[in-house]
């Protein structure tokens, strides 16, 4: 059993079947767990739990199924940059949207609504 041989033969890292099966079982467990937790009243922590489990599942898929654990530094930097850009997009979009105090300014025909409601 040569793991990754320098001489011709295997190209790249051969991941043991046991690792794949373990990752698969963990992903199945994560799916069952996230579904189960959704039926328990945790208040705002329901959302946190669902997203935390999703991120853990993503990391398992990326590291083992997508072989990033065995990838070169260059590939890893490109992937991290992608997620960093995603982070910028989400945080900056939300920072605009969630820090304003949206107030409904009645315009046009909406101006008459208070009067209408007073009549009826």
């Amino acid at each position: 059993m040569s793991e990754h041989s320098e001489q011709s033969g295997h190209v790249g890292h051969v991941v043991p079947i046991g690792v794949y099966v373990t990752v698969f079982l963990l992903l199945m467990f994560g799916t069952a767990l996230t579904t189960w937790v959704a039926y328990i009243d945790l208040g705002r922590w329901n959302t946190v739990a669902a997203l935390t489990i999703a991120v853990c599942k993503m990391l398992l898929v990326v590291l083992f199924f997508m072989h990033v654990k065995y990838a070169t530094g260059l590939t890893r930097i490109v992937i991290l940059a992608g997620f960093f850009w995603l982070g910028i997009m989400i945080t900056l979009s939300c920072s605009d949207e969630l820090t304003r105090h949206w107030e409904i300014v009645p315009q046009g025909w909406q101006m008459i609504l208070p009067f209408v409601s007073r009549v009826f």
Partner: protein
Amino acid sequence: MAAHGAHPPGFAHQFETVEQQREAGTLGMWTFLVTEILFFGGMFTSYIIYRSLHLHSFIQGSHELIVRYGATNTAVLIFSSLTMALAIRTAQTGKSKGQIIFWLLLTMILGATFIAIKLRFEWYRDYVEGLIPGVSWLDGGTHTPGVKMFMCFYFFMTGLHALHMVVGLGILTVLVIMTARNRFSAEYYAPLEISGLYWHFVDIVWIFLFPLLYLIGGRYPGS
């Protein structure tokens, strides 16, 4: 490296070594996947913002979806990721092409099962029950207007994900044909590896879509 004598199969002349070619392929595919992350990321960002603006409606809309089918489909996709990984491993270890084709076909069957469940038990039911905005919307006045927006997000996000699945099935078909034509060996299996990255990426998108659309906010009574 044997100088010029033995040329490894699938080795393109512009590369110094087989490893360099392999890294270039992986890096190129990841560059594409980063654009895909930002493509789906745009939808996730709008989903987050509109959900926060119309929280009550989005939770009401989320409760129209059936968790059972979403969870089943998550399991089906995770299983298909395992079979895809095993297909690549089978090629890496120089097994017979019959074994590679077996795992590829199993991956395709699981992918098709995902789409079938989505079509038959989710989208068709949504059509019958009138939950598709602009196509079939039977609102008995029980829904807040934001529910319609939630369902628009739901169909765009799951629709584009399903489209990626269909593309994936096309890629897998090509891989089966290439394998049958003896194009792969333990020395060269780059198309399998690269396509595997795509397949796993589509799996990851669903790993986020499932909790975001079906679960967050909770499904307990009174949520």
